[in-house]
């Protein structure tokens, strides 16, 4: 049961309610979001006659991206069932900042208390920044089981308005408005295969949420975490992760530094994707991989995973892009759907 506002498209209403209908163009041209109206009456909107043919209109088909309701209706859609999706409804929430500290020289950990908000490990929220039109996205950095709220890890973008406000202006006790949860980046427990968690920089937030969530299970497949940062002081929660790995048989942990390390550092040097090859010996087939970090790190990891014969259906990614990155996004072909 989905509530649809007057004038709201079926697609918008379903997505808002956590029902992920397949869609692509959003303008009634491609036909990806075709659904069948079983009961009730809909306005087909601006569906193209080539994307929604006459015979289909007669059969009660509609394009969800431009159809609106004339009465209550029952629709049927072909949804690729994702047994791991909880389909949590997206909502607007207001939380309160209960603690904040610098986790690294440029990353602030903000603890938010909120009630009535559920999410899946790996998902994100859109945080509203006063005075800015566009919200900023941040992944939850703690497990969903942590009652009463979540942590965000906010890395300061040099000159960035959103992260600047979250670092300099937001204080303990302040209210924080956000919408969520969003994202299809969550753990696929149903895959039941060895898990690769790959984090680059502040991408550790979503990955840490997933890790804590997985380690809350009584048992499960082996987990290999590779976490890359520039230097030792940029690693968030390193000591804790080392300790978890030492006490947990199914977890192995590699931290890798790309810049100068102190003489004390006896760990790996270089980049996350190089560690994929170093630790797995070039064979990734049979795993499920979750990759989170900046676009260049994700691209390098995808290439290393594919070189190790792991392909799109077993790779999940979440790109951390800044508002400035967005404009420079590369042109892509339709060869890959998600990657």
């Amino acid at each position, binding site marked *: 049961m989905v509530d649809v506002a007057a004038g709201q498209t079926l697609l918008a209403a379903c997505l808002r309610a956590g029902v992920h209908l397949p869609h692509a163009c959003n303008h009634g041209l491609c036909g990806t979001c075709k659904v069948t109206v079983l009961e009730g009456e809909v306005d087909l909107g601006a569906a193209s006659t080539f994307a929604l043919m006459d015979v289909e209109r007669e059969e009660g088909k509609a394009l969800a991206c431009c159809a609106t309701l004339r009465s209550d209706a029952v629709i049927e859609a072909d949804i690729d069932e994702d047994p791991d999706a909880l389909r949590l409804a997206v909502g607007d929430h207001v939380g309160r900042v209960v603690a904040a500290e610098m986790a690294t020289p440029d990353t602030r950990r903000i603890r938010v208390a909120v009630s009535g908000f559920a999410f899946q490990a790996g998902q994100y929220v859109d945080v509203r920044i006063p005075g800015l039109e566009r919200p900023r996205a941040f992944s939850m950095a703690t497990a969903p089981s942590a009652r009463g709220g979540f942590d965000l890890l906010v890395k300061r973008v040099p000159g960035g308005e959103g992260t600047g406000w979250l670092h300099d202006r937001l204080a303990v006790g302040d209210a924080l408005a956000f919408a969520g949860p969003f994202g299809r980046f969550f753990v696929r427990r149903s895959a039941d295969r060895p898990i690769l968690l790959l984090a680059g920089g502040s991408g550790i937030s979503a990955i840490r949420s997933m890790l804590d969530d997985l380690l809350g299970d009584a048992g499960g497949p082996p987990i290999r975490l590779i976490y890359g940062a520039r230097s030792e002081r940029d690693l968030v929660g390193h000591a804790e992760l080392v300790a978890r790995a030492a006490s947990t048989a199914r977890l192995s942990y590699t931290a890798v530094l790309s810049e100068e390390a102190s003489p004390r550092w006896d760990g790996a040097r270089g980049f996350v994707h190089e560690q994929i090859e170093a630790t797995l010996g070039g064979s990734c087939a049979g795993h499920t991989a979750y990759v989170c970090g900046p676009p260049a790190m994700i691209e390098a990891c995808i*290439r290393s995973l594919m070189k190790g014969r792991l392909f799109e259906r077993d790779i999940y990614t979440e790109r951390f892009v800044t508002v400035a990155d967005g404009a420079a996004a590369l042109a892509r072909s339709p060869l890959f759907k998600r990657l």
Partner: protein
Amino acid sequence: MAAATSAPRRLSLKRKYAMLTRGLGWETTYQPMDKVYPFDRFEGIVIHDWDGWEDPFRLTVDAYWKYQAEKERKLYAVMDSVAQNNGQLGITDARYLNAVKLFLTGVTPLEYAAHRGFAHAGRHLRGVGARIAAQMQSLDELRHAQTQIHTLSHYNKYFDGLHDFAHMHDRVWYLSVPKSFFDDALTAGPFEFVTAISFSFEYVLTNLLFVPFMSGAAFNGDMATVTFGFSAQSDESRHMTLGLEVVKFMLEQDPANVPIVQRWLDKWFWRGYRLLSLVSAMMDYMLPKRVMSWAEAWEMYFEESGGALFADLERYGIRPPKHHDVAKKEKSRLSHEVWTILYNYTHAAAFHTWVPSDDEMQWLSSKYPDTFDRLYRPRYRMWREAAARGERFYNDALPQLCNVCQIPMAFTEPDDPTKIAFRESIWRGERFHFCSDGCKDIFDDEPEKMSQSWLPVHQIFQGNCGGASIEDVLRYYHLNIGADNLDYEGSPEQELWDAWTADRRTAR
């Protein structure tokens, strides 16, 4: 009280499609599968798990029939109205129709060949999902051939050169360019065929054929062509996704497939590119109202869209097709070199050519500022002056054809547009000639196959084409001498067109 009954759930489209594909397949037991599907391992492609095939689209047979029937109804309504309202008079100029002649005689038989090729692939790929996709495409291609033949049939009533397209396709020299392209694909194994046609041609290069040509038709008032174009294009997205899926599937199934796929991408990129050189001439010279230049289309559809595709394919260890850099170097001269060839030999062709008008030369000069005025305008001036003296130039010497693309060898060196490129290879004591490194590489890779090319000029010299004189050969081609061939200027077609449109010109 009501018993708790649950209505049987309707099958989801995904389940329905799985029933149609996986559900209808079986492992043979009377004969081993390798004997039932003898060709799908022959090419060296290793498939471990056909269930890894992801259906690129889920179209069931009942839905397919309904969609295609509606498309046919819409198409033939337009065709009828074109016929009843003398739609042929709506085109900008009769010269435009020569682009249509080249398309309908060159491409329509390819649609039919594609129908046969996909029927073959649909029989010989052992994965059921891939087989069904190929079979549906086979039906699409038959429909495309049919709609184009109906268009051809309409224009045949009013214009020359269209009266015997099937006969001509097997004999005429420039039609051997598209024919040999498809014959090469048809005689390959099923994986190479699908890679060649669905991926390299329909995905990577088709926009260069359809978009400029269909926009050209729309710009020039040719509603019949626009309509069969739209009707075919609505199938095209399905064909493209099949091309993408088959390539992904091969690359993911086994690392040993990567070098084989790379070789096919190299080969079929170059073959497709050489075939499209005919389109370059149509775009730059044959459309009275031009849409965009060949160089602009190449930049938009290959350098940009193709660039994004090959950047993605790099993740599989695939590099951009060999000699794509040569295609880039050639983009400012390709159409001019091809038009020159067609102008030289139009006395042996079933369409007309002409020297571009002053306005057209101005347009060409603005689109090709680095090459046109320096390299091609002087030549057209010379030809125009010769024609004014009554000495329109026709080249009576038969040209050396490239053994692979079968185009007369008039393309130039990648780094010197004033020097004709000649390449050759010796195979079993015989010398073979090529227009480019791209064509030579294709020959050197499969000399057993490519040395068997049916080359129209060689065949004429061997006495297999009706005789030794040009007239003998044209009769063998079934050309109406003096009507189908020669310059547009002074042709019966021009005379008719001028008479039909006399009102228009006096009104102006």
